[in-house]
């Protein structure tokens, strides 16, 4: 049985690196990543599980970091937007202007990235379904959708070339 009380030292695997951090049991994964490790990509939007700005991937699946305790992430692989450098989805968000104020961007990137990893051949309905899990207060959804479609096209082209 695991028993944490007061300050405890845990190891978190974020962006393929092990980070040793001291946390309290009530610290959320979001706060620990932002304030103790320094990954400020995931944003504290609503901290209520509604907006999706804090989305990270845990063992490849998108989850909301504000709805998780840091101690629950021990032994899991966490990926934040900082781990998406030089990916097709990052490039496409830049070239298609997939953001306005940028606050929701990291969350959208993580969800879009996870979709393309899970199903690179997703159809329009599936893409809309995945993107509807995040909110953009600037209502810049069109650019986000275009970015996802462009990244998908590039990934499909790459996969075809490999075949």
């Amino acid at each position, binding site marked *: 049985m695991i028993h944490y009380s007061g300050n405890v030292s845990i190891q978190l695997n974020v962006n393929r690196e092990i980070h040793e951090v001291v946390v309290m049991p009530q610290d959320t994964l979001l706060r620990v990543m932002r304030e103790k490790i320094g990954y400020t990509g995931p944003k504290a939007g609503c901290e209520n599980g509604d907006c999706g700005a804090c989305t990270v991937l845990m063992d490849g699946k998108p989850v909301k970091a504000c*709805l998780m305790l840091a101690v629950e992430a021990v032994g899991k692989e966490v990926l934040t937007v900082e781990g998406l450098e030089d990916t097709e989805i990052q490039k496409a968000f830049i070239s298609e202007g997939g953001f306005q104020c940028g606050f929701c961007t990291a969350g959208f990137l993580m969800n879009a990235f996870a979709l393309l990893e899970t199903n690179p051949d997703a159809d329009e309905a599936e893409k809309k*379904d995945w993107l509807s*899990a995040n909110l953009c207060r600037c209502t810049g959804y069109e650019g986000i959708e275009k970015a996802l479609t462009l990244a998908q096209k590039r990934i499909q082209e790459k996969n075809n070339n490999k075949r």
Partner: protein
Amino acid sequence: MKTFEYLRPTSLKEALDILKNHDGNVSILNGGTDLIVRMREGHSSPEVVMDIKKIPGLDQIQVDEDRITIGATVLLNDLGLNEVIKTRYPYLAQAALSVGSKQVRNRATCIGNICNASPLADTATPLLALNADVHIYGEEGIKTVPLKDFFVFVRKTVLKPNEIVTGISFKQDPEALGIFTKMSRRKEVDLSTVCSTVMRTGTEYRISCGAVAPTPVRLFKTEAFLSGKTLTGEVIEEACKLAEGEVVPISDIRASEAYRREMVGVMLRRALSEWL
């Protein structure tokens, strides 16, 4: 968020001992998508948070010939995307996939949705219609409570402080047809304004609604009226009127009492009309 002790047992026995040793001051942490929000807002400040995700044997959807059992830690996404559930009980799959958002469903569980006992718990209506049973582990071992008797009031269940839900099961009825409806302002990431499951098995009907009473409810009077009848336009209208009178909704931020009442009729009319 107030500080607490975090305990992660690796067996049901250990979990029960923790519950007994901390008499009533334990919150069970499953997916945490509700508990963490409640703790952050100060609605809940337990001394101990007990994470049950590492208790073996609770993370399976067990499909037996005559029963299906959903383990306590089965994720909503895993339930909604399960092949057997999707093909034989699509209304349950739809309900599971209508909760929160994709990210939330990768953490949240069906049993958590039920144990929160929210009046608008989306997975409650299909499970009520399926006459599901809740399996509860306590000092006397496992006992079973029908889901309809499990809910007591808003956020209140019959679960005692020294008990833990291990899963929910229902008798297989692949012949039954069911229709799940969720009315909400936004398709994804929203709570139900009203939700319902209407089920038909032979000439019997089962109707359950969420967000129209202090707990998710079955509309037994309307069901009795429909029982054995051939569906016609008039029968459906009569049933809808009965159903609207059988629910006791309130007005809140999402809708008025009158709107909810009317929507109960609308959902029932649409569902029954599928089988005309």
